[in-house]
């Protein structure tokens, strides 16, 4: 390595030192890749250098924002009026639906209270803007302008007005990366709205579509069926629209039906997205009821430590232990 370049015949400048240097750098690159593949160094480095990286991202998104601003500035009046009209109609329709739903939602809430479940229909969301930037990886990831400082955590679902978009995978201080549902690495537990069939929607390799490769042969799935999140898996809350089936055919293996679906969210057109803050219902069996015995001050010492230890371990599952100690749900009268 200490050799200086003395070569005076540049036409055939192949020296051992040059090749050695190449091998050295290639080895370094390979080491970096392996380390990153194993431990996810890339995002740690991005996080550490966020003070440099994030302004560059903002800079790179300027042209897109500029185009957007230009589009607004030069849009002609007719188009804007049309858009306004359409939005107003949408709002009217949405409000009408909402009014009708309000009563139903209230009723639902009351019934659920009776059944002693904690599931609520409220949404806790944060609005985020998409940062117009190319993240490599065939555009199955987007950046949004909320980050760790806004309380964003990895794993939160991201939706838009029409359906599920994806989930947060990496967080920087003031921005974060979202993996879209169409990413080949993404899988999402869904349920077919019409029949209640549960299956899994994967992102597809080359398109804007979702693939459902493991539907049982005998299942009743048709083109036009709507897919909703099933809430299994514990990431996405249940009941959000995911997509609509466009094609059903037997898989190449002949053991399953394979369906394709179009995502309902505007995957490549959304400017604003919503980051959900409430997570899915905890999965798995309900936590065991805390031991109902005599009041703790009368119980022997070891029992009290047990009851103290219990709620702390159960706390992340989201259901307060008090809800479990309540009486069994009222019996539903049989007709």
């Amino acid at each position, binding site marked *: 390595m200490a050799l200086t*370049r003395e070569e005076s015949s*540049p*036409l055939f*400048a*192949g020296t051992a030192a*040059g090749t050695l*240097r*190449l091998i050295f*750098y*290639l080895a*370094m*690159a*390979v*080491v*970096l*890749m392996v*380390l*990153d*593949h194993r431990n996810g*160094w*890339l995002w740690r*480095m*991005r996080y550490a*250098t966020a003070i440099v*990286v994030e302004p*560059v*991202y903002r*800079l*790179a998104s300027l*042209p*897109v924002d500029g185009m957007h601003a230009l589009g607004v500035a030069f849009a002609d009046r007719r188009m804007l009026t049309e858009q306004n009209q359409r939005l107003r109609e949408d709002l009217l329709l949405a409000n009408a639906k909402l009014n009708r739903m309000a009563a139903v939602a209230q009723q639902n809430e009351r019934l659920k209270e009776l059944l002693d479940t904690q599931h609520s229909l409220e949404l806790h969301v944060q609005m985020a803007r998409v940062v*117009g*930037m*190319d*993240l*490599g*990886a*065939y*555009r199955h990831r987007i950046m949004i302008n909320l980050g760790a400082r806004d309380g964003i955590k990895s794993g939160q679902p991201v939706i838009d007005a029409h359906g599920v978009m994806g989930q947060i995978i990496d967080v920087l201080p003031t921005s974060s990366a979202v993996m879209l549902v169409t990413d*080949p690495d993404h899988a999402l537990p869904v349920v077919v709205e019409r029949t209640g069939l549960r299956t899994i929607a994967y992102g597809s*390799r*080359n398109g804007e579509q979702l693939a459902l490769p493991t539907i049982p042969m005998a299942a009743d799935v048709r083109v036009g069926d709507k897919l909703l999140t099933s809430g299994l898996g514990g990431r996405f809350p249940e009941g959000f629209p995911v997509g609509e089936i466009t094609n059903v055919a037997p898989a190449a293996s002949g053991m399953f039906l394979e369906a394709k679906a179009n995502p309902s969210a505007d995957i*490549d057109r959304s400017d604003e997205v919503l980051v959900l803050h409430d997570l899915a219902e905890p999965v798995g069996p309900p936590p065991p009821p805390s031991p109902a015995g005599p009041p703790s001050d009368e119980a022997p010492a070891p029992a009290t430590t047990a009851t103290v230890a219990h709620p702390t371990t159960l706390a992340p599952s989201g259901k307060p232990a008090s809800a479990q100690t309540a009486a069994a749900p009222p019996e539903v009268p049989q007709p």
Partner: protein
Amino acid sequence: MNRQRVSFWWFVGTLFASLLLMLIPLPHVLEPFKPYWPALVLLYWAMESGEQRVTLGLAFILGVCADMLNGVLLGEQALRLCVLAFIALRFRSRLRFFPMWQQTLAVLALLLNDRFLLLVVRAFAGESTPPALWWASPFVSGLLWPFLFLLLDDLRMRLRLQ
């Protein structure tokens, strides 16, 4: 001294601009045709200034920066740019005196090799093979090369930079 400093900043500026260009998204339809800007600019400087400026270390650093900004895997672009710079430096004296069309073909070959390398790396990382349109990018880069080369060369001449 001043002139030297200006030409140094011009050099760094073009590299930085290439990273920015890489980050800027294109309309969705054009996305697969996006040229690999850092490679093109690095190739230009490798042919123009040779080892005085473009060394393997610089290619490595540029690659790591590119990976940090938009990478799937840290070190991936560092590897690709190192290989690219190595080949370009080794054949520099021949590439420089090629007529433009031959040079363009050589650049195309280099970029195709680069894509192939990327394919290998991604296969090792366990990612799925990309669609056929993914191979369009080197050809677009090759088409752009003469214009980029002439533009950068012309600017350099006009600004009387090294």
